[in-house]
């Protein structure tokens, strides 16, 4: 109801020096994080990455994002963009949970999966 059209576009004035300095600091934090992990974790961690299939009852429905049966997974094309429904697997304590998350179709994550899928289909 309360729609306002603001005429002036916001001009982002970013000081290139500030930007460069921030980029340096960000890289430093990244590097320092990686280095500290390398030192810290001597032994390789055990793997605990099996997807708990029991979380997906009727896994057929959820097998691929191309399925259009369930409402969640329909492609959302309202405003030009289109999202794909994914599930995020998280651990709450020792319990595994999945939660819905919409990821834009043009994100590299979705794109690569699509390519893989296409390749698989061709095979």
């Amino acid at each position, binding site marked *: 109801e309360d729609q306002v059209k603001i005429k002036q576009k*916001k001009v982002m004035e970013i000081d290139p020096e500030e930007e460069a300095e*921030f980029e340096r600091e960000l890289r430093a934090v990244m590097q320092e994080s990686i280095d500290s992990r390398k030192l810290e*974790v001597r032994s390789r961690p055990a793997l605990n990455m099996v997807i708990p299939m029991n979380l997906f009852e009727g*896994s057929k429905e959820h097998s691929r994002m191309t399925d259009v049966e369930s409402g969640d997974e329909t492609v959302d094309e309202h405003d030009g963009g289109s999202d794909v429904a994914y599930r995020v697997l998280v651990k709450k304590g020792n319990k595994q949970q999945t939660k819905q998350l919409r990821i834009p179709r043009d994100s590299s994550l979705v794109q690569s999966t699509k390519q893989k899928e296409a390749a698989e289909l061709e095979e």
Partner: protein
Amino acid sequence: EEGGDDDSHEYSKRDLPEHSCKYCGIHNPACIVRCNVCRKWFCNSRGNTSGSHIVNHLVRAKHKEVCLHKDSTLGETTLECYNCGCRNVFLLGFISSKTESVVVLLCREPCLNVGALKDMNWDLSQWQPLIDDRCFLSWLVKVPTEQEQLRARQISAQQINKVEELWKISPDATLEDLEKPGVDDEPQPVALKYEEAYQYQNVFGPLVKLEADYDKMMKESQSKDNITVRWDVGLNKKRIAYFVFPKEDNELRLVPGDELRLRYPGDSTHSAWQSVGHVIKLTAQEEVALELRASQGVPIDVNHNFSVDFVWKSTSFDRMQAAMKTLAVDDTSVSGYIYHRLLGHEVEAQLIRTTLPRRFGAPGLPDLNVSQVQAVKSVLQKPVSLIQGPPGTGKTVTSAAIVYHLARQSQGQVLVCAPSNVAVDQLAEKISATGLKVVRLCAKSREAVSSPVEHLTLHYQVKHLDTSDKSELHKLQLLKDEQGELSSADEKKYKALKRATEREIAQSADVICCTCVGAGDPRLLNFRFRQVLIDESTQATEPECLIPLVLGAKQVVLVGDHCQLGPVIMCKKAARAGLAQSLFERLVLLGVKPIRLVVQYRMHPALSEFPSNNFYEGTLQNGITMNERLTVGIDFPWPVPNRPMFFYVQMGQEEISASGTSYLNRTEAANVEKIVTTFLKTGVLPTQIGVITPYEGQRAYIVNHMSRIGSLRQSLYKEIEVASVDSFQGREKDFIILSCVRSNEHQGIGFLNDPRRLNVALTRARFGIVILGNPKVLSKQALWNSLLTHYKEHECLVEGPLNNLKQSMVQFQKPKKVYM
């Protein structure tokens, strides 16, 4: 000028929620994350920096763990590696399953490099870092919309650096702490446009504070000793003390509702005593009537040696600060359109879709003229309008008609405000005449002050509500009046009942009328007003105007005249920085064109000519003819018979008044008395005459001189109002005598330098005006020079005794500068 409440909690503090971005205030749960180290929240917008706020914080504070908000898509979730639980967000990224639509967070060191993973169903080649392009992935933490970002505080990279440094020492510091100016700093001046409401608050907040501090200092230093009191009892059985409270230029002028403390030091037969009370009126004899709160133990058998202190209240200033804060933190305080317009952003024009009425007038009001109809019509279709009402152009009638039509659109209750109580009363009366249900909300401190619209006031309506279920309230009220107080249980019951009744009555009204400051009254706490009209808005400061607006305004009408006097700012520093500029004026500067009412019904056409040409580009038309302003039977020596005006040349010297802080001019005062006496002798009533002088010293001298020297009954002279230009604003008299006082070739003309003050002084008279002053001095100023020339050209510049006035040949000086 509005006292606060004694018994109710003040307005709710509107604060940003806990989960607001500590940089910019955005608090949409989908857009924010909490830093798990310092527990502050940050959003995922870049604002004016190269990285998003949360990434900025994590990098600069070297914090690395975050948690999503409980109302975000994923719920309250700490981001961590699915495999090893590592929470360092700089190491985390998403991988997806090869077969399912499933993603997990995995750390890049070491988990991503564990060979065994490759054999499982995960696609490791497309590890997507959580922080990408210096932002969190926008599909995990949303980027606020442009609209949200425009309303958020704009923070620069430098400010972020500073506040992060500050947090290392004091973790609870806010951005405001960064902005705090030093004691001696000149305040930041007001601007035309503001990025957002925080910047607005950062500019106006300190100015309001300066004014508040000055006001407090000045009022609290106003203690007077050796006051003589006479005692009386009011109808409500409360004690009233009458006394004279001496005043000087620029010093505080008491107004009804002010709170004073009366003290008696004690003597051999009386112990020391003191009580606080409210000023309920100022008598014509310049006495203050103070209604005391306590009726017990008052030393009514003593009259001398009392002292009076001013009890300063911060209420009005607090409400201005609260309104600015509300504008910044509460998205619903005003519509998006009004928000951007107030801040001076360029927005696409909006029209209000409404069916226009067939008639633009309203029942119970005089018919509207063309420009008034135009004003009503235009206002109804626009979310923001300005109406400029030059003197005598029917501003109040037009406003009342607008309110009538707004109320009939059934958008909820209409809020009608003005800075002064007098203006609110006038408007309330007119609106009520249209048949709308009006509630006039008065400050509690003014409930004992008599008002022409008492029957409309909330407190009156509560008292006189005549239904059986209110009898409990009435009983308690009666008991309270009789005993002075109630038992604590009864008092509680009484307050609850009263509050409920007040609410009920206020809610049933079509229109609520109160002062701008009154709109911050706790009794309106949960009220919302989409349509707000502010009359005399050019006499209010911006923050004052904001108080009624932040109650949900979607349609705003500001009425006023920026060519007349603006708000009175006592603190010079704050005035210099621009606090004296009204919102109306700023909107005009921003290009909002006021709709001008152009037909004036007050002044004799000869009197409106100069103001029209010099203040209103010659647009003022006369709604009355010369014949309607004939002074039949009044034998007064006007130099030109059908021009009831003259400039009376005075060469007497000015003097410093006894107080040392003001000026007086004896010759002018003597001639004022002669003019007044001549008017009175020809049958003009004292109430028809107003004497205007800008100086308190002269005002006091004239009052005194007239009653001493005047040849007629003293009481006649006492009834004549002698006051400053400022106190005549908004009012009219049949005859005006203006005494300019200043007559010093080497100094400025002080108060008279302001063209807006001259405009007000010249436009108060309906039938005739006499100006007394020294043309040699006044002609140095350009506007006065043209006024003198105007009088001279019309053969109205005269000198000599009143019964033998002659054209004056006095030479004018060249005006110094065109700039006024």
